[in-house]
């Protein structure tokens, strides 16, 4: 498995915030059994941090992350504004889920690699979203097996059978160690339809400012 350390990768990046010419909001929802690491996955992505004692999510939590990329063809800088709904996993909260996935473009369904019963819940969510997709707009569905740091590959056969049957993109991650998280979100970024980008507010703001300064 490719395993570049996330820290190294980040520290090599430039510290300045680039000015994006285009931007897009991307709504993501996380679903899955309780305590599989949904919140930890988001925290790793948004803040590059991990808290083993993170309290359980109640209802849902909202997290925002600005993510800049350059288009390899045009060298254009684009901003993706991730708006992530991280839902609570316990069964009792299930009836709240539609409110959060209804407007999502991407659903990340998470299960725990060391707890095979959580895969059943993941299948449930995939089935529910596919049923929703048949009637409404398309939500891209991704399956994530988390806690790869704890996994001894004991459930691999069953997992690969399931993944094959479900026909959804599958990722292995460790929110604790940061493994696979960048790959997951890079995949999401790469699948974004160009059509959703609009002219960036950052550029507009800059135009405003330069106009102001030039006139005074």
């Amino acid at each position, binding site marked *: 498995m490719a395993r570049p350390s996330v820290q190294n990768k980040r520290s090599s*990046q*430039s*510290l*300045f*915030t*680039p000015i994006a010419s285009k931007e897009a909001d991307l709504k993501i929802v996380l679903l899955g059994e*309780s*305590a599989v690491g949904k919140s930890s996955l988001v925290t790793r992505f*948004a*803040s*590059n941090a991990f808290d083993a*004692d*993170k*309290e*359980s999510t*109640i*209802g*849902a*939590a*909202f*997290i*925002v*992350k*600005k*993510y*800049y*990329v*350059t*288009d*390899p*063809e045009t060298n254009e*800088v*684009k901003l993706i504004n991730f*708006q992530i709904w991280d839902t*609570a996993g*316990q069964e*009792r*909260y299930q*009836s*709240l889920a539609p*409110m959060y996935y209804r407007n999502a*473009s991407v659903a990340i369904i998470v299960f725990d690699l060391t707890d095979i019963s959580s895969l059943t819940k993941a299948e449930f969510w995939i089935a529910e979203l596919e049923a929703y997709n048949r009637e409404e707009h*398309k939500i*891209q569905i991704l399956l994530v097996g988390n806690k790869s740091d704890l996994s001894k590959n004991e459930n691999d056969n069953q997992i690969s059978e399931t993944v094959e049957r479900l026909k959804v993109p599958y990722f292995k991650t460790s929110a604790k160690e940061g493994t696979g998280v*960048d790959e997951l979100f*890079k995949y999401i*970024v*790469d*699948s*974004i*339809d*160009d*059509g959703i980008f609009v002219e960036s507010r950052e550029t507009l703001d800059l135009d405003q400012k330069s106009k102001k300064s030039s006139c005074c």
Partner: protein
Amino acid sequence: MGRRKGYQKITEMSQVDHKSNKGGLMQANGSGSLPFFFKSLTNGSSNSVDRPSIDSRRSSHRWDSETSSPKPMKFQDDDEDWDDDILSDLTIKGEKFPPFRGDDDTTKYLNSIVNQPDSISVKEPTVELQKSPLNKSIRKNFKSLIKDPLSLLSDLDLAEEKKIYGVKFEKFYSILQDEQTNEEQELNKLQNLSWNGIPKRLRMIIWQMLLRYMPINNSRRVAQLERKRQEYQQSLSEMFKDSKKDNNVWHQISIDIPRTNAHVKFFSNTKIQDSMSRILYIWAIRHPASGYVQGINDLVTPFFHVFFENYMENDFNVQEDDIEELSQSTGFEDILKAVEADTFWCLTKLLDTIQDNYIHEQPGIHRQISNLVKISEKVDNALTEHLEEHGLQFIQFAFRWMNCLLMREFRLELVIRMWDTYLSEFPQGFKDFHVFVCCAFLMKFSEELKEMEFQDLIMFLQDNSKTSHWNDKDIELLLSEAFIWQSLYKNQLTYT
């Protein structure tokens, strides 16, 4: 989703920190959202925020003058019958013994019960004493405190308590010392006094009295406590007998307990965690309509904290001091046993008032939220319109406020202060009054919120660091404001 482009990420900015440019908004500006004619009510009492005198029935600060108009009390289960059939509704499902940390402890614990099934009374220290002396943090008279919590009255440093709490302490003290004539009147006095906060040393007793768990009446108190604790022990041994447990329930509890206030040492202690797990498990099995729901674990902690503190010397800080050593010492098990049983019953009493918050589809919470919307519209229509305009639904931030009774929004010691008032409003405190507290809480930030758009709104409302500088005075102001909204808009609430 379109073609894959292989974008190259160049840098990123996490927008978790939205507070940086808003230093000013953290000011506790309690009266900001109040109509001018209320400002004097809430601002006037800078030293201690008095309960506002709007409701004439409860307006008196002099409890001794209230005998003429006692508040109608609606409770009946202070005697023998509440929750009596603890053993009859036990259902033990599941076949396999799920792995969980602490099985050994539970077994040991249960054996100790089985060995002395007829008595909850404290085991005489024998050889153990030499091995593990009484920890200096445990009160010397802990045995009598367990048996009759009111025995602490003879042990108090009155001068010291008066120095801290002033005349308020004397009032509490005289009620507790009184050879009661009328239990309801006594309770009524305690309710009125408790609204403005309870002295720390008396908190366990008063809380248990306000919940109608501990009888105020001297003649019944000791026997009642002993019986309820014994009942709990019996249900424990029944429930964990044959090592059969409801796997799903136990699994959910065992993954939640380690992350319940995990940053506080006290709650990361194994024995404390096992004890809380047992409480939650038995409550869940006895209430199959709701079962265990995340958030109920939070509700155990104030009880546990307050009850445990009752047996500790004044210099012991439950949240900061290390209890590893303490948990090995003589007396700890006895204290834990009493605290566990008392917590179980008090949690049960509390949850009885809000059980539909946790049943299927959580209708209680949805009702509370729609009441919150309704009241907020009355109090500050511009704000609710602003939220609506930006597509923010109350459920997206207030669900947690209801499900965890605002416990995720405040530090535990502030929650405990809040519960003094909630318990004095028992049984409506955690249900209806709470909605007004949520409204007052929302209004605290009305001006800032009106400047924000969806993304900042939701993040600000979910971020609990906005109360990190709050202290008891801020909570008391919040409660006073809630009281005002309640007296104005109580008739607007929907109950079904």
